[in-house]
């Protein structure tokens, strides 16, 4: 796909908005539809579109597989870490009420953090799987 100027221009136009929309879905998931999972998949779709339009080498330069592997673990650890933090503060596992002085604030903080963990893991795993599938062809 080296000689596809139209595809490249259109992809360049679309990708920033896809990534921005993913962040919106991530952080607006408390108020509208969406959340970490959907946001992660949309973010990964943006990167995958970049890889499809500009080739895998460019995509490896943009997102190195070496970064993706720790990132996918960090998301899970963030999720589990919130659970451990709630236990250390005297609550049950994943009982966000104890995270802040006000239970509702604690819930907000906990949900924000675990959704972030979900988003990080889903993004990096989706991109990793895509790289693994497409990288074999090259």
């Amino acid at each position, binding site marked *: 796909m080296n000689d596809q100027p139209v595809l490249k221009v259109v992809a360049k136009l679309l990708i920033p908005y896809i990534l921005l929309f993913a962040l919106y879905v991530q952080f607006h998931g408390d108020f509208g539809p969406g959340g970490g999972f959907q946001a992660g998949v949309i973010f990964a779709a943006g990167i995958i579109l970049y890889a499809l339009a500009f080739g895998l080498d460019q995509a490896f330069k943009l997102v190195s597989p070496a970064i993706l592997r720790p990132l996918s673990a960090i998301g899970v650890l963030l999720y589990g870490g919130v659970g451990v933090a709630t236990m250390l503060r005297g609550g049950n596992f994943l009982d966000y009420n104890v995270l802040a002085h006000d239970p509702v604030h604690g819930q*907000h903080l906990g949900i924000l953090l*675990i959704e972030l963990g979900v988003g990080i893991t889903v993004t990096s795993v989706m991109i990793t799987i895509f790289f693994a599938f497409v990288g074999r062809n090259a």
Partner: protein
Amino acid sequence: MRIRDLFAVVMLSGIYSLISAGIFVVLDAVDVAFTEAAVGAGIATVLMLGTLALTGPKEAAPKHRPLLPLAVVSITGAVLIWGTMDMPRFADPDAPIHRHVAPRYILDSPTEIGVPNMVTSVLASYRGYDTMGEVIVIFTAGVGVLALLGVGRRRRKNPRGGPENE
């Protein structure tokens, strides 16, 4: 009708996913529709196409006769449909699922969790364990793909790599 062109099959399944997402929107399950459109119609289709690039777009003609698989599929389908006979009527407000924990979620989540999107409060807070399990499933899927396929190209460029990771 029979399709041996796997490219057409992949595109049809992607279109099917997109239409399912539309059905979910009509049923007011916007979060599910979101996921279906992004994963089913988006990522899954791209991954299938990536697989087709590796395996070739034509299905090999099967050597066995289709009667046995057809019988298995028909019987399983009939049993599944028979199983739905006992389920409550669609959108029945007295269905068990609407009488157990749903009232608590609907009545108390605005004051307990304080998040306007009830789906998020259920997924992230009331059912936090399940969501954590899902994240671990996704992580495991990534680990599995890495263990089986690796991100191949980088290893092959490694001069000290020794034997290929095939």
